[in-house]
């Protein structure tokens, strides 16, 4: 069996974002494997460990994405395919290009993150499924293979959750609770050096143009009340402020 995780590299959650020339500047920002994609990577490695076969990681993005692919290899993925394209490419166009490579690989299933931590997009998984003509299960919290042709999965909905059976091949997207990702290990890092990382240069036209990015933080009042000495007085003051000043209760 072959399991593919599609991943991306995004700013670390604690990174302080800056805008330069109307666009988010990633200069000096620590970039990491997207946390939700990390669940996807962990899941394909676990599937491979449990059922045999191959765990492959794939990405479409700029040269720097190689670091995230290497992290996935160090976690235990067997090989990587990097479709190299600089600049912003919308998830629908990404899916169209990734699908061609995925189809050649003919995997048992594909996993990717539920939502991207940079573009806040949820589209890549379902768009990939459409491009491949496969079913999709989003926000997956549990997955169990039933042979090579179907799987049982639990996934979150807007409200509540659902247990589904899905014919394979299929695309899944990750959600919290799916697994606890392992660290890449130092032996893994050493071994990753020898693993195949195939690069395919790509020229992609994005269907969506990002005109301008801004950080519009709401100006907060930042009033601090010391509640350590007299919590009752602090609580009374807070309720009074919410009632009289903010007028929200």
């Amino acid at each position: 069996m072959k399991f593919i995780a599609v991943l991306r590299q995004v700013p670390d959650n604690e990174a302080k974002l800056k805008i330069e020339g109307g666009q988010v500047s990633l200069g000096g920002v620590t970039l990491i494997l997207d946390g939700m994609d990390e669940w996807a990577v962990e899941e394909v490695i676990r599937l491979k460990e449990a059922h045999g076969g191959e765990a492959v990681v794939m990405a479409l993005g700029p040269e720097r994405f190689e670091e995230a692919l290497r992290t996935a290899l160090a976690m235990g993925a067997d090989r990587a395919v990097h479709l190299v394209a600089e600049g912003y490419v919308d998830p629908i166009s990404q899916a169209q290009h990734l699908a061609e490579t995925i189809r050649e690989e003919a995997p048992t299933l594909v996993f990717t993150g539920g939502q991207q931590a940079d573009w806040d997009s949820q589209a890549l998984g379902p768009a990939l499924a459409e491009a491949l003509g496969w079913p999709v299960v989003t926000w997956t919290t549990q997955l169990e293979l039933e042979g090579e042709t179907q799987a049982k999965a639990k996934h979150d909905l807007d409200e509540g959750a659902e247990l589904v059976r899905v014919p394979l091949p299929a695309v899944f997207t990750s959600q919290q609770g799916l697994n606890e990702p392992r660290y890449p290990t130092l032996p893994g890092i050493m071994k990753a050096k020898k693993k195949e990382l195939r690069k395919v240069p790509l020229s992609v036209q994005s269907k969506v143009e990002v005109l301008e990015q801004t950080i519009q933080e709401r100006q907060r009042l930042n009033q601090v009340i010391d509640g350590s000495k007299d919590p009752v007085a602090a609580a009374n003051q807070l309720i009074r402020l919410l009632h009289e000043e903010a007028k929200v209760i």
Partner: protein
Amino acid sequence: MILVILDHDGSHLRKGALEAIARARQLSSLGNLAGLVIGENLGAVAEEARNYLPTVYTAEVGSYTPERWAAAAYAAVQKSGAQVVVVASSRQSRTWTARLALKMNAALLEDTLESSTDGSRVLASRYSFLNRVTEKQAAHLPVVLTAKPNTTPPAEPQGQGGIEALTVEQPGAQVEVLERVAEQKKGVSLSEATVVVTGGRGLGSAEAFAGVEALASVLGGAVGATRAVVDAGWRPYGEQVGQTGKTVQPSVYIALGVSGAVQHQAGMNKSKYIVAVNKDAEAPIFKITDYGVVGDVHQVLPALLEAAKKLKD
């Protein structure tokens, strides 16, 4: 043609559907409007929908799967020749609209806050980078656009349209639902609440949430939880606010014993007022609060409850 796909509960259109119609009307320079309802036994919702739109398509395809919904939407697109599709944003719609966009080879503008047109392109703004950045996007037609809930005043009825049933071919491989697990729900809906009282790990135990529930109830609000609290099993997932939970935007968000990780902030940072109680003055939550109390939540929360009760009496 602009196609609005209308979210409904089987008997009525949802508020999001009316917001989507309002959004579509804002783009009417790009074409006439048509609506689509998808599901089963659509008579009642189609009747309601025709009060808003000149044409309403119905697609009786059965219960929801992303594949069915995308197929139904695509049938309506082909029938109507629509170049723009507008849908209320939700996890569910963001799944099948991605499929639809691919079928149409269209640009997808996800979870947009507002949208307009310059005559040839659709322009939209949306949040990105875990809700920290606001970005303006532009795309040439065809475009599929999802509209974030509570961003547009719902449309008013207008005219009386016709209803037309579509035949939709069942898609091939698709998921089969074995079981639905309903969300445990008590009191006010988290997404719609004007007051949200959220407890974090700082509360120390599941039992301490009695105070959170009591305060939410006195203020007529909903209870929220952080991921740590949900992971610990103290509260159900349905109450989780944040990147992998719900996004809320109440008039006031009261965070008790919440440190305020970026993933949590992604679900609440657009609230009108943010209040935090935390003993750690360095907690990241204080960077985005309007009113912060530095103190022991176990002492402050009972006092808040008393003060709120007094106010309401």
